[in-house]
């Protein structure tokens, strides 16, 4: 149990998926304009990555590894994760329109997010078993949500400021993200 918590904290803060591994930057920068949208996206990412890492772990341990197909994991993970998200989306649309409305367009958007695939591949690389993979996926997605919500907060403050014209828009967001990344390096000193 203790190691699971460590995996969650480690993947959420110490090796944060966005600020430390630089995965999923496009949605991180693109959807952080509004706090509400970034929270929705964060929820969708937690949902998808947790499910995706569970399925990818099962598939790897039971099919790919015994058959010696280790080298095909990237392609198979893409295939399975994309289909999985589609099915989940259809399911939600039918069974739970409220959740579907809340997650909205973000579900299909993150199907192709490199963070989702990156988690699945990292889990395999770190030799996690099924439970550990799920914990790692959840922790990573939590880290993504923390990062994007923080950036959305910073951006809402930036919008109120009178910036020099060349910094307006994307440049100041890049600078803010870079400073956040440097700040998150501080978690590297955590001893767990």
């Amino acid at each position, binding site marked *: 149990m203790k190691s699971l918590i460590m995996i969650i904290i480690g993947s959420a803060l110490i090796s944060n998926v966005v600020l430390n591994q630089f995965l999923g930057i496009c949605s991180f920068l693109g959807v952080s304009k509004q706090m509400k949208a970034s929270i929705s996206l964060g929820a969708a990412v937690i949902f998808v990555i947790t499910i995706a890492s569970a399925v990818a772990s099962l598939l790897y341990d039971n099919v790919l590894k015994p*058959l*010696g*197909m280790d080298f*095909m994991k990237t392609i*198979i993970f893409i*295939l*399975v994760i994309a*289909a999985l998200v589609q099915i989940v989306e*259809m399911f939600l649309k039918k069974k739970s329109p409220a959740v579907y409305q809340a997650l909205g367009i973000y579900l299909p958007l993150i199907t192709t997010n490199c963070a989702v695939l990156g988690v699945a591949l990292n889990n395999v690389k770190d030799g996690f078993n099924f439970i550990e993979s799920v914990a790692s996926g959840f922790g990573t997605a939590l880290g993504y949500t923390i990062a994007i919500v923080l950036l959305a907060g910073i951006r809402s403050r930036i919008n109120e400021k009178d910036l020099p014209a060349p910094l307006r828009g994307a440049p100041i967001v890049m600078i803010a993200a870079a400073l956040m990344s440097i700040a998150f390096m501080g978690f590297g000193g955590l001893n767990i």
Partner: protein
Amino acid sequence: MDIIWITTLVIAVIAVLVAAGLVYAGKKFAVKVDERVVAIRGKLPGNNCGACGFAGCDALAAAISAGEAPVNACPVGGGPVAEAIGDIMGTKAGAMERKTAFVACKGTCEVTKNQGNYTGIQDCRAAVLSGMNITDCTYGCLGFGSCAEVCPEQAISIVNGVAVVNRSRCVSCGLCVKTCPRGLISLIPESRIVRVQCSNRDKGPVVRKICSAGCIGCGLCAKQCEFGAIEFDGTLARVNPEKCTLCGKCAAKCPAKVITTPVN
């Protein structure tokens, strides 16, 4: 068995399973979509230009079917599309005339003097930002062609230093209207052909000095008009398209010949 064959087989099996799962889920979890949305989307042009104010043609179709947008909300499709959508929605489209972009400046290189020695970025917006003296007329067309650049249909060209709209190609998306830093371009119904082709608000003598094709604010057109269609505020005449009967008397009297008529 060779590893390649095993891999091929396994991936094929996974792909078939996934496809079967998707088909099954698609049937089982099918949600009834309003068929009007699909029909309306089929009638829309599909440019996804966003001129209607929605995110794209799909969003507009959903908004029209929900009654949040009028059937003639698509400026690109114009009358025919509005009618087709009106048939789907069961409402009358209402009269909607095609609008085209109009550049309110006649200051070609011959008629206006150009003192500026601006050598910066050859773009109207950049030139205005620089604050430098580009043309003597601070209201007129700069001629760098920013509007021509954004036009998705290549309907605008710079002829002799002034933007000219090819009305047959214009789809009235309004991108040029937003782009022009001097606000010279507007969308005007096609038949409203009597227009004042100048935007200069300087006093008459000033205008005369810098441009021989500028509105000098004499007000002759307003006196000439029997229908009160010319709105004259002392420096610049404007035609009110709702009152104008296209008689062309104002244009005949205009000393600077800045009012366009059906003839020219």
